């Protein structure tokens, strides 16, 4: 009797759940929800059906002795499987994406952290450099010095600035600026201004000022975010000068006047 009643209960609520689920899917499709959300709405309907099946389910018979122990073990196994399975079907972040990023972010710090060695090497290099300069000076005073023109450096300046912009774009990714600022139509969730035209609105030294001291400038219309200090005041501690230079160089190239980047206002 109880079994019949349970079967009827499952059938009845199950059918209602499926019907409600289909209605939700159709409504979601009509209102342009992506497929993954349509599927999710269907699952919500089925969760509702399951809840109402349980509410009207007949009383469970008592389990005793070995049956109770086996029941418990199965229950724990089902729970564990459900939680691992549930977590595994959700989209997974690929750690490989981050590994490369972290290596790049920490490269300079890692080199510096090898205490003693790095400092010693720098000190030695400086000492050798000073000695070379002093010898060169002596040679020049004797009239035997040759003036070496660094052609390579001059000729490659265009390529070097191109590299700098590329490095700056990399810094944009590494420092995850895209989480708050929209650029090239990607990223940003209203936390920070869209930056496609920032190169026309701020000079490089002003951009540097903003990065190192976020309170120095405010974007028009972003008063609340400015007051709350949404832009982290950490880049002066986290980024090396070369990294800031590169990021500034990249931002200075952003000159798409068709995009309405909010006007920067000097605050300090």
């Amino acid at each position, binding site marked *: 009797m109880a079994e019949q009643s349970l079967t009827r209960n499952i059938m009845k609520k199950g059918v209602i759940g499926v019907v409600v689920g289909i209605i939700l899917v159709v409504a979601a499709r009509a209102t342009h929800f992506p497929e993954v959300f349509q599927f999710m709405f269907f699952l919500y309907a089925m969760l509702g059906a399951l809840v109402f099946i349980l509410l009207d389910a007949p009383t469970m018979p008592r389990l005793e002795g070995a049956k109770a122990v086996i029941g418990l073990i199965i229950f724990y196994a089902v729970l564990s499987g459900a939680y691992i399975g549930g*977590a595994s079907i959700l989209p997974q972040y690929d750690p490989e994406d981050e590994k490369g990023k972290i290596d790049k972010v920490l490269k300079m*710090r890692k080199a510096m952290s090898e205490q003693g060695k790095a400092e010693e090497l720098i000190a030695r290099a400086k000492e050798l450099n000073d000695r070379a300069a002093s010898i060169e000076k002596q040679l020049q005073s004797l009239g035997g010095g040759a003036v070496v023109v660094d052609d390579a450096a001059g000729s490659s300046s265009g390529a070097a600035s191109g590299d700098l912009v590329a490095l700056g774009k990399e810094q944009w990714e590494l420092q995850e600026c895209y989480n708050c600022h929209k650029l090239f139509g990607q990223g940003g969730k209203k936390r920070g201004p869209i930056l496609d035209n920032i190169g026309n609105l701020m000079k490089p030294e002003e951009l540097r000022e903003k990065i190192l001291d976020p309170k120095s400038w405010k974007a028009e219309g972003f008063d609340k975010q400015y007051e709350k200090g949404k832009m982290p005041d950490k880049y002066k501690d986290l980024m090396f000068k070369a990294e800031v230079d590169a990021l500034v160089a990249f931002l200075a190239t952003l000159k798409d006047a068709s995009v309405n980047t909010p006007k920067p206002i000097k605050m300090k």
Partner: protein
Amino acid sequence: MKTLTRSLFIFLGLVIGGGAIAYAQVPPAPLVEFPYTGNRTAVWIVAQLHILFAAFILGAPIFAVVSEWLGYKNQDPKYDRLAKEVTKVTVILYSMTALTGGLFIFVLLAAYPDFTTWLISHFFVIFAIVYPLLFILETFILYTYFYSWDSMKGPQKARHIALGVLLNIVGTVTLFAIDGPTSFMNTPAKAVEGLSLVEYIQTAGLWDKMANFSWMPLNLHRMVGNVTFGGFIAGLIAAYMYMGAKTDEDRSYYDWMGFVGNMIGVGALLFLPFMGYLLAYELCDYDASICPYMMADQLSMFFEMQGAMVGLIFLASNYYIWLSMKRIQGVEKVRMSGMVMIAVLLIPAVMGVAWKMFPPPEWQSLLFLAALVFLPPILSRLPGLRFTVSAFTMIKVGFLMIVVADAIWMTPHGFVATQAMATEHNELPSWASELALMPAKNAAAFTLVFLTIVNYILYNRAIRQGTIIWGKIDFASQFVLIFLAFSAIWTMGLMGTVRSLTRKYFHVYNLVPDFTPEAFTPTLSYSAWWITGVTIVFFAVVSFSIMVTLRPGSGQKADAPQGIPVPAGGK
């Protein structure tokens, strides 16, 4: 004499010098690499196990002393028995806390020697003096509290309760002390103007480092979490004992114990989303980039899983109330104003819109809240609005809205593991983006809390108007109690993982980088495997402790006989 002194100095100098040279010759120990798990996961496993045991030994005494006090106040031996049984299990698990704590330090030192030394040097007073002393004091008080239970009866009972209160005070101070370094790793004290963070931390005092942004929110979150933990574990103990009970008296008692454990667990659980919100708010306030990392980027799906878990826990706790009500004789007579039902149906939409227009804590937002809570009873007195609905109808409507609230709580902005992969094919359409924002999430959380309170009000009316028969609850309720304990602990593990991961590739956020190859965000799936593994190990140990100390099914006599059936509302 002078010569002798000089000779002694020279000798000592040689010994020290020789020793130093010899030490300098010793090659540095090779770095430890834990097989299979790797170093980070090894630390993760031991730390999480330690925190679970610590949460138990901090949460269970709060539960126990409140229960003992209720027993004393109402002269009801049931409460005293409950308190003693929970304390008995706590005493056994106390050694596990110490064991896993010691293991944690060993593993941490082996896996991250430089960082561990650095952290200890910054919190030397805490690690070397305060924490050990508090732990010893707590041990002393706990054992005295447990072993003096029978000798401090009658007129001395109040003193025994005072001892329990002292145990909880020391436990809470211990928690606060160790939360200092833990929270410091997430939000190290901010540098003062003109100094870099590194320079500031070198000169900052201990208090500056302890009283960081997330310290108090973490303290509050863990304290409330521990009470929830204590309640649900008491429910677990009750479920095991009920399953093994041989007599009606025992079944009656453990049925009641399960109800009390669940009520305390759920009572504290109601505050937990708000405590968690406070902690997340402080983390985001400290550094706004943590927020997108948690909610929109690498950890977004961890929060999706958390949403699912919280939803399931609220569903299960309300299902337990439903099963509890089904065995009350006369429950069919219990009714509630239909206006409350209408308010319940309106809550998610009204509060979502209200909080969108007036974000909390603006006073207008509280006005809407007050209107929803207080208007139904007032309106229901007006002629023409005096219709009522049965308790079961009310609860069923409540369940419908719990499912709706769960759906809102779980709906993300996009089904993507990182913001960089967001496209229109996996994001909400722009017209519905409000569903993923905080006003909607707050409205969902409020709905879950409100409905749980309404269900408890109905339950109280039912036991006042009817007769509750302890020991006759649907057997499925015992699995609900176990489900609640397992799921709450699993969720604790998940959110602990999230809190740790918000440090990104730093040991101490923005201050001490983690140069090891394991400094990346693991996948949710990988995390879920380990969280489940740790939860199972914890449950195995707790289950074993319950078996050993309380011996379910052994038929041992209760401290005081319980009568069945117990009149509703009876002491």
